């Protein structure tokens, strides 16, 4: 379990890696502050820039951005009632009223402390689960891998999209797009549309990811208007408020533990992330709390939101690192980064590259701590970032993404792919499609095909292999249950059951 920890710690002791983590935390913090951007967009834009780094530094960079954006999102949520990221949506309910009462610093301190503590819980669960997950990962052969991917796709399609048919349809499109190019299992060059060279390696992952997430968001921002957000500013209060906020967090241990556990569980479920855990933890606390200030600036309510959304990352990382199935969009980008740096993702990651697992653990931790400390100190100035005109923000995002897309292979057509992906991503979100099933399908489609074809080779063409392996059968039952759940729910609503 602890093999590789030395490599991860030794790297963190080097000044350049420390600098990288600090820079990443600042990037994530700023991206989190800006509504419309978040860790996903920041990681997508940063991904190509990691190309020149060694893999340990690159994974530190991406992990730190991933974790730091969440607190960044809480800053405008508390100070100007605009969540910087979806994971801070519920934070506005309690944080902004506190700030309006002149307790902005107290609210920020609660958010920061709960975020760090929640992050520690999530990461702690990740670390403790490693031996079990390492053992379980070995059980995953081709049939199990195929069923796991299928389960992940169905779960994500349902959880995110709400409409399972649309979710599966768009994940199917993602899977199909992943099949373009050489098939590793058959060695055949397919669906090239006449391309003899460019599509040999398939659609370039980084160009596609950055286009779909970053450029589609840039189009959205460009459509929006003048500034990212504009709201009445509030008084922060003094340093006494900061100290008070830190102490306040520890006055609600049960709330903190319950919310952190919710965060971890939500994180483990593929496809759902901080945006859900934030809301679920808050809703549960609001129901059972006896605090009369709930909904009007309750400390307990704020502790619930903030500990859940940071605990989520530890949970997200478990399926991502254990099975190569991203627990969230941010983890999908992290997987892209691992691929880019030649780290084999999937069940063998924990077996062969434990140092990478530890790098992710420490990167998430460092990002959380640095962003919380930095965010507390710089809150007022960070909130002002939301006043940046979109007419300057949009072209800078576009420029970063296009240069990053080009830099990976120095191929101009990757720039075109990024733009087309961005336009595609925009139209999908505009017309009610979620991007996560598309991306998960795109990242895992080729894996699923490989596992499927290998399974058929093993069984000499018989589909029974998917049902004769106990774990595969169990996962198949999970697929069926998830697929039938909407029908079951409808029958319950109609009173039939």
């Amino acid at each position: 379990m602890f093999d590789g920890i030395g490599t991860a710690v030794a790297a963190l002791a080097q000044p350049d890696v420390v600098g990288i983590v600090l820079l990443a935390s600042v990037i994530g913090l700023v991206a989190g502050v800006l509504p419309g951007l978040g860790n996903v967009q920041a990681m997508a834009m940063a991904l190509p820039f990691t190309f020149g780094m060694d893999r340990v530094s690159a994974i530190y960079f991406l992990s730190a951005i991933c974790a730091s954006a969440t607190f960044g999102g809480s800053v405008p949520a508390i100070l100007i009632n605009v969540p910087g990221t979806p994971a801070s949506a519920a934070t506005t309910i309690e944080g902004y009223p506190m700030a309006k009462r002149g307790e902005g610093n107290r609210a920020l301190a609660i958010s920061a402390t709960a975020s760090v503590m929640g992050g520690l819980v999530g990461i702690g669960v990740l670390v403790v689960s490693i031996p079990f997950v390492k053992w379980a990962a070995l059980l995953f052969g081709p049939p199990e891998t195929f069923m796991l991917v299928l389960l992940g796709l169905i779960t994500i399609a349902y959880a995110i999209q709400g409409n399972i048919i649309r979710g599966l349809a768009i994940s199917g499109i993602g899977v199909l797009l992943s099949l373009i190019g050489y098939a590793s299992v058959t060695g055949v060059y397919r669906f090239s549309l006449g391309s003899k060279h460019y599509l040999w390696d398939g659609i370039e992952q980084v160009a596609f990811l950055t286009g779909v997430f970053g450029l589609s968001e840039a189009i959205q921002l460009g459509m929006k208007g003048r500034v990212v957000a504009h709201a009445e500013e509030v008084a922060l209060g003094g340093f006494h408020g900061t100290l008070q906020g830190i102490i306040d967090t520890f006055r609600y241990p049960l709330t903190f533990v319950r919310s952190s556990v919710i965060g971890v569980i939500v994180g483990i479920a593929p496809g759902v992330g901080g945006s859900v855990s934030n809301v679920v933890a808050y809703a549960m606390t609001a129901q059972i709390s006896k605090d009369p200030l709930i909904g009007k600036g309750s400390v307990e309510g704020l502790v619930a939101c903030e500990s859940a959304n940071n605990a989520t990352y530890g949970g997200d990382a478990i399926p991502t690192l254990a099975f190569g199935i991203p627990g969230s969009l941010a983890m999908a980008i992290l997987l892209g980064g691992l691929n880019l740096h030649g780290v084999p993702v999937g069940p063998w990651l924990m077996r062969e590259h434990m140092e990478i697992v530890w790098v992710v653990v420490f990167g998430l931790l460092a990002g959380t701590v640095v962003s919380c400390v930095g965010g507390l100190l710089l809150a007022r100035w960070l909130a002002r970032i939301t006043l940046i005109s979109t007419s300057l923000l949009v072209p800078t995002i576009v420029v970063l993404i296009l240069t990053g897309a080009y830099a990976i292979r120095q191929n101009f057509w990757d720039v075109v792919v990024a733009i087309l992906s961005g336009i595609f991503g925009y139209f999908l979100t505009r017309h009610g499609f979620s991007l996560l099933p598309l991306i998960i399908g795109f990242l895992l489609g080729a894996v699923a095909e490989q596992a499927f074809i290998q399974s058929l080779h093993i069984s000499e063409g018989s589909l029974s292999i998917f049902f004769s392996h106990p774990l595969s059968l169990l996962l198949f039952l999970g697929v069926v249950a998830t697929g039938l759940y909407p029908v079951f729910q409808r029958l319950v609503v109609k009173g039939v059951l």
Partner: protein
Amino acid sequence: MQSIFRRDFCSLIAALFVFVVGPSGAANAQPVKSIALPHTITIVFPFAAGGGGDVQSRIVARYLPKYLPGAPTFIVKNEPGAGGRTGVQTVYRSKADGSVIGSTYTAGAVGNQAIFGDDAGYDFAKFVLLTSTYHQPYTIAVGPQTLYKSIADLKKAGKPIPFCNEGGSLSLAYIVIAAKEMGFPYRLIPGYPGAPAATAGMLRGDCEAVSYGLEFTNRYLKEGVRPIAVHGSERHELWPNVPTSKEQGYPLELKIDMVFYLPPGSSAELAELLRDALTKLYQNKEFLDAIRAAKFTPTFAGTKQTQRFVSELTKLYSKYASELREAEAKIK
């Protein structure tokens, strides 16, 4: 006057010394390098990270810069896919400006061309070969759950022996050739991104056997992998108890080696520069110790010897061309 003459004579000798000895001396001490290497050089390895070739490529990437002018940064990029063809194609299509160096298993790259023809996506003869390393015999090993102890057992199995492999490359080629020569039935479970994944598949029970290089397979003995044959003329010191194919009645010698190569059209000066650097690298004690610490034996072959390997391999694959194409067609 005599002293002036002596002074002039000495000056003349000194001048002659500088103009004649100086340049040749400089040439011996430090070759004139007219090539400007890129700041970053990528070594493209066509299999997933973790295997023997990948590990050695990374160690080379760490130590080679100091033997090159400007000490460029080396990055190793894994480009698995299509049984090792994808990464080789990348190098084939790359600019010949020193920014990309390929490293791959010679037998695999030549084998893919023999199997897939034009579909391989490259003409190996057009690459500029540098040097090669990681020379060792190939083997057959079986999983802990099987009862096979020898090639004779494979023949008596009464069913095709399933082999996990990448679906191309020398792993497929050597399985096909060994099966043809030794007369045991086989079938392929393709699609693993590299030797570690295929061996893991065997340990998990996806298949019963794998065929890989001796030193790589040796690392998995503690996991339960059991070698039953070495395709060499003599027993290897690492496995004194494992009989050779020759001892079991099949005088088959199948070897693996890893070659460093440049894209087609690379200049002779660039090739010479890199060959020189690699040659010096493989004399560096610290580097050789690093290879040994990774549990590999550092071997080295210069360009001429490497080119001889390629010729031998090309002949070998020509002999079994139809069997190789048939095996590939079954996977498609």
